[in-house]
């Protein structure tokens, strides 16, 4: 399986974009992502503002209001937390076309620890009006989504990683911004996932559950968290016994919440949310290990789904989701 770091794929795509779009601007905060990069004729449109994340967002807003299309560069923890108020007021409120390119998301910073992890960013960005929130799952989806992001008239948050992560299967078609991508058909149990390792874990878990448990398992790739594709979700989960979300984020406010909100409002379904536990991750390890330690692997997902499915099946094989059996017919 090939591998790529979504941030370097983005970097290379941006260099190209800067050449093609004379309104694109790259605003940097001493990240090092562009060290040694040659922007060619576009060099004047690369600006390193120093270690200054609030300023970054404010400058980007001023430039976007003047007709430029800034790509701002920082880590997810600094975009979503350190500079949040500038994102909220200067960028989101004004609906300005700033592209917030956030690297080191989730626990991809690995051993760098809690100050460099961002397990809150999706909750934070999703609550902001006017914001488009995108989570690519590998190099190919990063390229595909970036091309579409470039055309958006409003602000976008793009969640990127740090080190290479394995690619999705080669035959995966390019994702379409705003639309859930069906990676595997199946309606009995439906996995909804976002981000490199969660998507791979979900695909493999689906395979296992189909092969070993005879289940009909679907996998939905929800790369666009906002706006959320309600229609595809409700259609794909209409007959499901169980919906499962898998993500690299704390439990509140991320993909699991988005799906919970949609399902509860449009088509109540038993839901299992698999996310990073509600605590800071301060054990040493790389991204893959830290997620494995917390159950986000194919095996972990499989095991939790089996347990949940066993709980759903009552003594006489009837649904025992608390309360369902007592639902009064209206």
């Amino acid at each position, binding site marked *: 399986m090939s591998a790529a770091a979504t941030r370097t794929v983005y970097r290379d795509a941006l260099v190209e974009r800067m050449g093609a779009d*004379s*309104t694109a*601007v790259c605003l940097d905060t001493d990240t090092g992502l562009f060290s040694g990069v040659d922007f060619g004729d576009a060099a*004047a*449109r690369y*600006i390193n*503002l*120093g270690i*200054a994340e*609030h*300023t*970054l*967002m*404010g*400058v*980007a*807003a*001023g*430039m*976007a*209001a*003047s*007709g*430029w299309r800034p790509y701002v560069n920082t880590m997810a923890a600094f975009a979503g937390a350190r500079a949040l*108020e*500038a994102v909220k*007021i*200067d960028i989101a*409120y*004004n*609906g*300005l*076309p700033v592209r917030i390119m956030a690297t080191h998301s989730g626990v991809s910073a690995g051993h760098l620890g809690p100050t460099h992890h961002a397990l809150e960013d999706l909750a934070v960005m999703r609550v902001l009006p*006017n914001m488009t929130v995108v989570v690519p799952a590998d190099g190919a989806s990063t390229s595909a989504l970036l091309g579409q992001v470039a055309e958006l*008239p*409003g602000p976008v948050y793009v969640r990127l990683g740090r080190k290479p992560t394995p690619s999705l299967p080669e035959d995966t078609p390019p994702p379409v911004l705003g639309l859930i991508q069906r990676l595997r058909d199946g309606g009995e149990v439906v996995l909804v996932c976002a981000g490199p390792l969660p998507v791979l874990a979900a695909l493999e878990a689906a395979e296992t559950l189909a092969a070993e448990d005879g289940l009909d398992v679907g996998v939905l790739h929800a790369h666009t968290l906002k706006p959320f594709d309600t229609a595809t979700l409700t259609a794909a989960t209409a007959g499901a016994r169980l919906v499962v979300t898998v993500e690299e984020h704390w439990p509140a406010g991320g993909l699991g919440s988005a799906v919970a909100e949609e399902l509860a409002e449009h088509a109540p379904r038993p839901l299992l949310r698999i996310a990073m536990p509600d605590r800071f991750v301060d054990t040493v390890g790389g991204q893959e290990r830290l997620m494995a330690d917390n159950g986000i692997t194919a095996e972990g997902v499989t095991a939790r789904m089996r347990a949940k499915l066993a709980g759903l099946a009552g003594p006489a094989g009837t649904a025992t989701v608390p309360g369902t059996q007592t639902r009064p017919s209206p």
Partner: protein
Amino acid sequence: MTAVAGADTGAETSPPVAVETTPETGAAPDSEFLRETALRIRRHIVDMCAGPEGGHLGGSLSSADILTVLYFSVLRCDPAAPHDPARDVFLLSKGHGAIGLYATLAERGYFPVSELETYARPGGRLMGHPVRAVPGVEMPTGSLGHGLALGLGFALSARLASRTNRAFVLMGDGELQEGSCWEAAIAASAQGADNLVAVVDRNGLQLTGETEGIAPLEPMAERWRSFNWAVREVDGHDHEALREALASAPWEPGRPSLVVARTVKGQGLPMVAGKVHSHYATLSERMHARAVRALRAGER
């Protein structure tokens, strides 16, 4: 909430010129005209503070002369073309001075003066802090410490487009306790953004007391100089001094400019001038009448 129409990235347009003429008479904006304009602006401020929600009286009055000079003899701007890419941009970083800005924009012709009566009234668009729905407002402000970075964004935009327009930012002195101001100050001088001009409304007071008692900002000029800005100090109620300083910026090539405008919070109203409680006021009918009389008397 929609983005500004039209890309500002190099299209050739003829730049609007600064008002070297008064909107009404066609004559040069003499000191009398500026004084009368500032008085009208103060009157509007006082009127709005007698509205349903009151208003940020003291800081709006301390900024009134700065805004008058900027909009009537410094800024290259045109109420008829508020999005002209070649305009000078103004940002009220001390967004709580909104009523002063609204009064100035109305006097300058961005919207009818009569609209000022709608301030803080449901159905209107004049909120307690400036929003972009109001013609002439470039960016929403009100959370302190945002304006300088925004201004730098406009300044860098102009430079990238090879334009000569400038960005002006008005900050409060208490506002300078926010680290984001200094962060942007570092970036601005680093970028050599000499088309960025900041003014500090140095009225010595913040919400709960004297700046020097709460978190001192002196030596103010030295601070900015050490951040590699060009600095001038002026009497913030002296139109000619303000105009000279603002119109002539940049004073040093490659450096952003900072005007320390020494002001009095509540200037023009002896009953509150220099007093911390001037910060926010809801004027009763009686107080309003007294304030109007005081303004008139002061001008004579």
